[in-house]
């Protein structure tokens, strides 16, 4: 992660969903996890577009799984978080924590 470059909100959420999946996960698992935890009904296209961008940045890697009949003979694309992705999450998390520190007294719960 370049200095000063922060993760976008969807990038942040998707990386966290991948970490939560604890292993290799495909787009629908990520989408479901986000929907269950945040109530945001994001489209599968938005998930894959973000995953593609994260892969270009080197934060995640992907490989093709086996095609299954449940998927109409289509193969899964499985994603995993790379070390650079974990670092980016730490930096983004740290930035948010730094920026929200001390605001609790003013705003109540943050």
């Amino acid at each position, binding site marked *: 992660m370049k200095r000063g470059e922060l993760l976008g909100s969807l990038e942040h959420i998707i990386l966290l969903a991948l970490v939560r999946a604890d292993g290799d996960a495909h787009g629908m698992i990520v989408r479901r996890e986000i929907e269950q935890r945040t109530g945001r009904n994001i*489209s599968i*296209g938005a998930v*894959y577009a973000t995953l*593609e961008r994260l892969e270009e940045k080197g934060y995640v890697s992907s490989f093709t799984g086996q095609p299954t009949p449940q998927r109409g003979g289509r*193969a899964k694309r499985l994603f995993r978080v790379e070390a650079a992705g974990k670092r980016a999450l730490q930096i983004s998390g740290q930035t948010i924590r730094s920026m929200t520190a001390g605001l609790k007294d003013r705003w109540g719960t943050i």
Partner: protein
Amino acid sequence: MSRSSPLPFACWLFESVLPGPYREAMLGDLVEEYTLRIDSTSSFTASIWFWSQACRSVPSMIRSSLRSRNCFISLSVATGIYLFIEMLKFAADFTISKLFAPGQSAHVVLAPIVFLLANAIGGCVAARIRRGAPTFLALLVTITVAVLIDLKGCSIPVPWWYQFGFLTLGPLSVLVAPAFLGRLKQRGLVM
């Protein structure tokens, strides 16, 4: 409708229209979730969910395709082919206008056929040269038609749905024709 291949038309349409390297994986995910949703809800609710997810995914996938690193090459290929199909259309329109006077029913019927056919040929050529090129070509066709409609480029009075047909079916023919040709090749119907 079998459980292993839900909404075959929707799958085929989105497989043809959606750009991007993860198209197949994305459709696979949708199909998998759709079959799970049929068990928990109804076939109708699951179908609505499938269509809404697929339709909402199109803008994200197109944006992602336009943003990709190799988009400049795809755009160049699309522009070249766009000029080629415009020449093709001009030649065909010229021939039609020599045979039938503008406003004659034959002219009104033949013009959209030529338009769709030229776009379909362009789409197939674009897909053969570069995978991402049909998306850009469809975009160029949409912009041109929209500008022509706005400038009232059609000299003959035509109903709104006729122009709307050009605006929607034009780009769709660019995107769907390569997939259709691929299917025909798979079945051995085309060399």
